[in-house]
């Protein structure tokens, strides 16, 4: 699914990622953990195709293609979804309208006709139910006036609607109370399929109680310094990041 080789990335000349290697196979859930400022979000943005990030070396192969050759929207249409840490507000644009536009642009890319209205609405209903979302949410403007938890739920809702091959969830658990966390995790788990993959970026082990990863990576100072099974997350929680630091 995703193969990152020796990826180095700089922002305004400052190197943030220093030779990342990461293999994510179809059907797998990977967790990337690490202290603040180690490049977790940078990795998410580079995969997503955000401007301002300079790839100084290495490559990202996604479904056999060089991902870095694709534009942001092409990557999205190829099935990459980024769950934002800080989702931005788009005043006046209803979630319904936003999602229908997104789905239809993706369908256009795939050579399909726009989604029939009835089918779209039925899908909305289904996914709203799954995420225990309020009915009126879909008529509200994208993220405008949302609480932290609502914003994160909305990200997962969009993910459910867009059905990506590779979802990267950047600190989706931050700012969530335990109920919201459970709902978000349920949403993610429900969307697990043998042919799609998830990368969960998180600070805390807590989320991994709900979304059980196949592989856990520790990102530190721009490098993946340790990888292991799900038990590593517990160890990390127990011993703290100092443990990693000292073992280097």
């Amino acid at each position, binding site marked *: 699914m995703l193969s990152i080789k020796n990826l180095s990335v700089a922002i305004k000349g400052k190197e943030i990622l220093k030779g990342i290697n990461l293999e994510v196979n179809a059907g797998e859930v990977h967790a990337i953990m690490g202290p603040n400022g180690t490049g977790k979000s940078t990795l998410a943005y580079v995969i997503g195709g955000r401007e301002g990030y300079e790839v100084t070396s290495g490559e990202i192969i996604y479904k056999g293609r060089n991902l870095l050759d694709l*534009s942001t929207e092409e990557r999205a249409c190829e099935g990459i*979804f980024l769950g934002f840490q800080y989702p931005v507000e788009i005043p006046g644009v209803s979630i319904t309208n936003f999602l229908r536009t997104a789905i239809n642009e993706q369908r256009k890319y795939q050579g399909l006709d726009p989604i029939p209205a009835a089918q779209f609405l039925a899908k909305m209903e289904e996914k709203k139910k799954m995420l225990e979302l309020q009915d009126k949410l879909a008529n509200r403007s994208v993220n405008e006036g949302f609480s932290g938890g609502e914003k994160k739920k909305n990200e997962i809702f969009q993910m459910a609607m867009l059905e990506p091959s590779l979802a990267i969830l950047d600190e989706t658990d931050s700012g969530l109370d335990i109920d919201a966390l459970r709902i978000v995790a349920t949403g993610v788990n429900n969307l697990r399929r043998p042919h799609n993959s998830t990368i969960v970026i998180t600070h805390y082990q807590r989320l991994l109680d709900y979304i059980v990863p196949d592989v856990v990576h520790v990102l530190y100072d721009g490098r993946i310094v340790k990888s292991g099974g799900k038990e590593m997350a517990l160890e990390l929680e127990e011993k703290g990041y100092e443990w990693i630091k000292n073992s280097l």
Partner: protein
Amino acid sequence: MEKESNNILDEVTKGEYKYGFYTDIEMETAPKGLNEDIIRYISARKNEPEWLLEFRLKSYRHWLTMKEPKWAHINYPAIDFQDIIYYAAPKPKKELKSLDEVDPELINTFNKLGISLEEQKRLSGVAVDAVIDSVSVKTTFSDTLAKLGIIFCSFSEAVQKHPDLVKQYLGSVVPHTDNFFASLNSAVFSDGSFCYIPKGVRCPIELSTYFRINAANTGQFERTLIVADEGAYVSYMEGCTAPQRDENQLHAAIVEIVALKDAEVKYSTVQNWYPGDKDGKGGIYNFVTKRGICKGSHSKISWTQVETGSAITWKYPSVILMGDYSIGEFYSVAVTNHHQQADTGTKMVHLGRNTKSTIISKGISAGQSNNSYRGLVRVIKRAENCRNFSQCDSLLLGDKCGAHTFPYIRTENPTSIVEHEATTSKISDDQLFYCQQRGISTESAIGLIVNGYAKEVLQHLPMEFAVEAQKLLSVSLEGSVG
């Protein structure tokens, strides 16, 4: 689901000006230039009564004493008023009994614009008074409306058939001395629409007029007069597209609205005159005077405009709140791109007690354009307990365009509450990235964001018009992303 006004501006970012075709119809024109003989010629051509000729002549004589206003935030080369043709009309061939008899060219033009003069319009609930250049060619639904006592016809026809009404109200809202362009219009106006809704009648359909500039060097001087008698209601829509032209064309229209006691008039405009090309060449000069008067108590006038066209827009649809408890509203989206210049806004003049006005203005500037809001809120001494709320937002696309706000507030009564809010924002990279990450192209993303931004105004457009507006607006912000 809610009304999909969102989509109206959606395609705003795409395509060249689509309505730049030109209809080849035989024209009957006056010689270039302006003098009393030309005015007499126009008046005679239209078989006007003496009092109307006198109105034109006194307007002309007053106009001669006036100077072109220069206070607006716009730049354009001097207009040579002697280089303009002041009268052009499709030659009347004979009395027309059905659509088959209308010039097929003309029908074709209407079809390209998506305007159907046929009976389908009845189903969609729209009566159309189509104006090509100066003379109304065909009026539909007059019969249906006539049963309710509603008069909806060309201005010229109204002069012939309802001279008393025209005489009573013509110039009563916009006097012939009002301003340079209004005086010019009063002297040379060619045709336009007239609408009268009798006492207590609620007009069951949206009335609409499509304007179109069609002949080279022909100034357009439309004159519209809408009178809603006591307790009457009408929703009136005006939309326009113009053929692509290299030479600048002057358009100086007047719209007068009179709302008597308990009457309500809703006037919606989608304006899409040719804006000039990407380098700022060509385009329409649009100097319009639009004003309504809430003459009776509890009356209401509401202006909604979507302005995407014209090289220059100079336009301030206003309301004089004379009757106690009357309401004035102004909702505006003005889009400027490339080298367009817009100086637009409104005046709310509170003369009556407990009058209320709302102003929502959304400016969108792209390219190297300049977009100004200019508004006056005035409350006179005797007007107690007046209320105004103004919100003027500007959205900038790119860094070469300008947005300006000139709010004037004059209140002489201490019991009035006048609020003014203004914001200026840019489409953020975060917003764009967010949309793109969901698979939405940059152009569509801008459309979506601009849509959302303008939603508060667009939702005031009548439904039928919203669809029309979608077509008309789809072209304006082309090339603004980069």
